[in-house]
């Protein structure tokens, strides 16, 4: 296998031509999003440069505390991103449920994946721990966002049916069962869909990265298969936890429906 071609700063700048093309299209057509596109491009560049330097430092000075700190920051940012998307729509209990579900769902799968499937040593090896945690947490963030969206919509749009079920003597759990099931399905669907298209429609980013850096495609594929299952597990576990704990926040102690 060939070694990866090192990119110089100049070569990276050459890639900016694509941003210029988009800016030109937006300007000519009068879409008026130039500022947003420019800021997003610059922001991404700066964030990644910073992340690159931080990762170099962490890889050169591996420490369990540093790895755990990075994971904590990633989890916090993911929870913050989800909560920000649903501002004024969630009660305090539901916010706590989201944080707990994301934390338990991703960390349980991550620990199993790293220590039992890949068997990294030392257990906090940042070269494995951080990027894989990033993939688990990132995908879970999408799943949880969809889950929260559909649960809120379900409880609001199907309020009459939930109330009718309660009136007929249902427990809050059975009154919300169909909403919880359809929400779970909708939240894990993007992960399932990406599994279906993988290898045919597209080559996943991690696998592409490994192949570019000289890893045998067969090894890269083995990693990709294992990681996709890990991601599926993390998304599914986090979402079902969020739903099983979250639906309760829509009911009070008297089993009456309370919508935020």
């Amino acid at each position, binding site marked *: 296998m060939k070694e990866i071609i090192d990119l110089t700063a100049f070569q990276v700048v050459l890639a900016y031509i694509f941003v210029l093309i988009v800016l030109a299209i937006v300007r000519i057509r009068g879409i008026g999003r130039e500022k947003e596109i420019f800021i997003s491009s610059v922001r991404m560049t700066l964030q990644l440069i910073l992340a690159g330097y931080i990762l170099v430092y962490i890889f050169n000075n591996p420490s369990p505390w540093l790895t755990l700190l990075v994971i904590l920051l990633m989890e916090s940012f993911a929870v913050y991103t989800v909560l920000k998307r649903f501002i004024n729509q969630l009660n305090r209990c539901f916010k706590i449920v989201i944080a707990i579900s994301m934390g338990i769902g991703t960390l349980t799968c991550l620990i199993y994946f790293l220590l039992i499937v890949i068997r990294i040593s030392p257990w906090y090896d940042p070269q494995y721990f951080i990027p894989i945690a990033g993939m688990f947490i990132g995908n879970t963030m999408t799943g949880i966002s969809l889950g929260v969206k559909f649960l809120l919509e379900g409880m609001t749009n199907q309020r009459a*049916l939930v*109330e009718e079920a*309660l*009136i*007929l*003597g*249902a427990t809050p759990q*059975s009154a919300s069962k169909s909403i919880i099931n359809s929400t779970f399905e909708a939240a894990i669907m993007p992960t399932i869909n990406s599994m279906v298209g993988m290898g045919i429609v597209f080559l996943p980013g991690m696998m592409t990265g490994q192949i570019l850096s000289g890893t045998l495609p067969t090894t890269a594929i083995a990693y990709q298969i294992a990681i996709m299952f890990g991601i599926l597990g993390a998304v599914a576990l986090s979402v079902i936890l969020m739903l099983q704990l979250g639906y309760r926040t829509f009911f009070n102690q008297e*089993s009456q429906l309370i919508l935020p």
Partner: protein
Amino acid sequence: MQAVFEFIDVKFKNILDLPEMLIERNKITTLLGPSGSGKTTTLRLLNKMLSPTSGRILFNNIDLSTINSISHRRQVTMLSQNPAMFAGTIRDNLIIGLKLQSKPIPDDHVLNTVLEHIKLEKTLDNPVQNLSGGEKQRLALGRVLLLDPEVYLLDEPSSALDDATEEIIIAMVTNHVREKEKTLVMVTHSHVIAEKYSDAIITIANGRCSIRRDN
């Protein structure tokens, strides 16, 4: 007189303020009053879909706030004025209450008898979305009858029915309640129905007072 429900200084937000009210066991009580006077709120308080802001409601002399809401709703079941229909067929909607309460599902013969009682001339496999408002209301009544609770709370059970059907349905329900020695609390707008079928009439005016009159 045996009270099944007793209100003691019950207030609910600024909608209802009832210092006292009694509902008798094994009797048919009608709640009368103008729109917005708090009749539906009263029914929802009786089956714990709402809880009083202050005051106490006693159910068989036990403070309702100490009784589990779900088991209470299984004894004291309400038919709302605009009952929601679940996706599926007439059969699905008839048995939904039993399913939600994990009770055994009767065979089609029993279900067809219920359809006859509620004068719904449709088959069990008919999808519910094709039913009219009145038919849906009767179907919802049918599923409450199948649950066979101790206390029936019916919120304008005949509001979407024509006069002739209204008479038949109310007669059927009141007969059923008397035969099985149950309790019925019914909200109605019709003085004629109230006078003809109930043992006691409670008039709620502006949610502020209740006047009881035994028939």
